[in-house]
């Protein structure tokens, strides 16, 4: 039946359609930029593509005058280190807490309302407390991200664990499994792919908290650089940094999806998220 709902694009069309919005945005940018540059050749707001290119070269390939470092890579390494540390810690906390609360009603009764409340605290609002308790160094940045995403992951895992059919748990017990064994052999394998999904969904928030942490107090990092050069409206540096962050986040998302498909083929049967 020829209806919009049934129309599926062929591969070439799909690629064209996927590229179209990017091309349109690029065209709009170039048109705005050249218009502003015609009026004021020194305009910093929408720099020409060539000056963005020059800025990328300067940041990524030429050692900085002040420190002799390749700033682009120093910033990237610092940010990725913070982000991956924090996400790994959050995933571990989320998994343990989520399974405990989801599988053990006694723990759930005691802790669920607490975890639910903690996950509702906006982390940015308790920044002064984080500073005083964890200092201003690397630790407080990681803690801010963990504080922001671990409770969300935990609650997601808790919900997923509760969705496990009761029959499976009962069946495992009739086969003689202890609580520990049920968790290890039934709950954990079902929770792990969910964990990857939860981490993928919270990556956006993790980047948000990372940039916020770096904007507040830092000596390097992608967010640090953006907020520093914002001081003199260096959009030629900010725009490529934003694109780079987008690319890094997108790549992480794809990698996690790939891992999930390879490691948990049963989970992804028929689904293409």
């Amino acid at each position, binding site marked *: 039946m020829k209806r919009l709902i049934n129309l599926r694009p062929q591969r070439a069309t799909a690629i064209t359609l996927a590229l179209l919005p990017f091309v349109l945005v690029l065209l709009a940018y170039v048109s705005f930029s050249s218009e502003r540059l015609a009026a004021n050749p*020194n*305009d910093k707001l929408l720099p020409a593509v060539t000056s963005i290119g020059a800025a990328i070269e300067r940041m990524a390939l030429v050692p900085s005058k002040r420190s002799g470092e390749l700033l682009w890579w120093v910033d990237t390494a610092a940010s990725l280190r913070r982000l991956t540390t924090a996400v790994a810690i959050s995933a571990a906390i989320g998994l343990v807490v989520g399974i405990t609360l989801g599988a053990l009603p006694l723990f759930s009764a005691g802790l669920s309302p607490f975890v639910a409340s903690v996950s509702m605290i906006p982390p940015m609002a308790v920044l002064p407390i984080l500073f005083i308790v964890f200092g201003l160094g690397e630790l407080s940045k990681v803690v801010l991200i963990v504080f922001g995403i671990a409770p969300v992951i935990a609650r997601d895992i808790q919900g997923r664990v509760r969705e496990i059919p009761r029959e499976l748990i009962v069946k495992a017990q009739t086969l003689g499994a202890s609580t520990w064994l049920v968790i290890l052999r039934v709950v954990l394998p079902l929770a792990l792919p969910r964990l990857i999904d939860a981490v993928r969904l919270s990556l956006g928030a993790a980047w948000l908290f990372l940039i916020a942490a770096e*904007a507040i107090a830092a000596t390097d990092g992608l967010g640090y650089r953006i907020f520093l050069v914002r001081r*003199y409206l260096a959009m*030629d540096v900010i725009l490529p940094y934003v694109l780079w962050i987008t690319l890094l986040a997108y790549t992480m998302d794809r990698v996690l999806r790939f891992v999930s498909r390879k490691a948990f083929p049963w989970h992804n049967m028929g689904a293409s998220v």
Partner: protein
Amino acid sequence: MMRSVARLTRRTVLLAVLCAVVSLALSSPLAAAEAKQKFKIAWTIYVGWMPWDYGENAGIIKKWADKYGIEIEVVQLNDYVESINQYTAGGFDGCVMTNMDALTIPAAGGVDSTALIVGDFSNGNDGIILKDKADLAAIKGQSVNLVELSVSHYLLARALEGMGASEKDVKVVNTSDADIVSAAASADVSAIVTWNPQLSEIMKTPKTHKVFDSGKIPGEIIDLMVVNSATLAANPAFGKALVGAWYEILAVMKQQDEAGKTARTAMAKASGTDLAGFESQLSTTRMFWTAAEAVTFVQSPDLQKTMAHVSKFSFDHGLLGEGASSADFIGVAFPGGVVAGDKTNLKLRYDDTYMKMAADHKL
């Protein structure tokens, strides 16, 4: 039937996309400077800029705008740098900022700007705080928390220069001004450079020592009302109205009677403090209460020396942009036809014309 509907839908979508692109391309964000009726100025909270808020609320700005047959909209922004960025992007005709930011943001961004009103200079409003140490020399080897590339950074550079040290002797940690008070409470922070009201807030905590402040480099951190030079040239009425209003507001603010107290209390409230707090900030701010004082300051050769320091600092930190080949890359004009730096790239002008009119009661 079905197919034609589908085609119709596709065509509509395509048309909508095209329309969006064309309208985006046509809507011009830039308007050439020309005579106009309506003007917008931006201000942010700072002791030396609170008069703008009071003048707006007390109707003094409207009175002067009416006198010259124009309209002036006064907009408060929460974020200082953002307000300057918006001015630079053309969103405002005028904006309050320091001399250094005027050089490094609009002027370096190619927007020819005029310091229409020189309102005050910081005379202790910016300071360096050390924990447990009472001597500036102890700052060597420490991590220093400050807003990088701001006047705080400039103050630190000048302080280090004065003791024969350089920035290499300390480690600068960029810290947001909104969070610097809570950051200062953290145990691993030992040296802070900031401005008021954060400065006095941090000084309230025990074991803090103010080891250097802007009173030791008087007249170098200057607070200005900066306007777009082309807009000003095409609309002298805009300059006259702003300057006229400003000195009327200051005259009220300065008075020791009930009216003056009411004005200062209103400004204190709007900046989140009380009268005592506001007056303590005023005491470390050297206001130019009369136009004549401001004119003398702008005409003094000291201002040229200050701008040379600021240009050098800005160039050393890459604030003049990558195209800048030296600290003289941007031309700065002073009263009397004096120009420092590149005459062909004149982007910042100290203009005493309008303040002189106020001093001579010709407004």
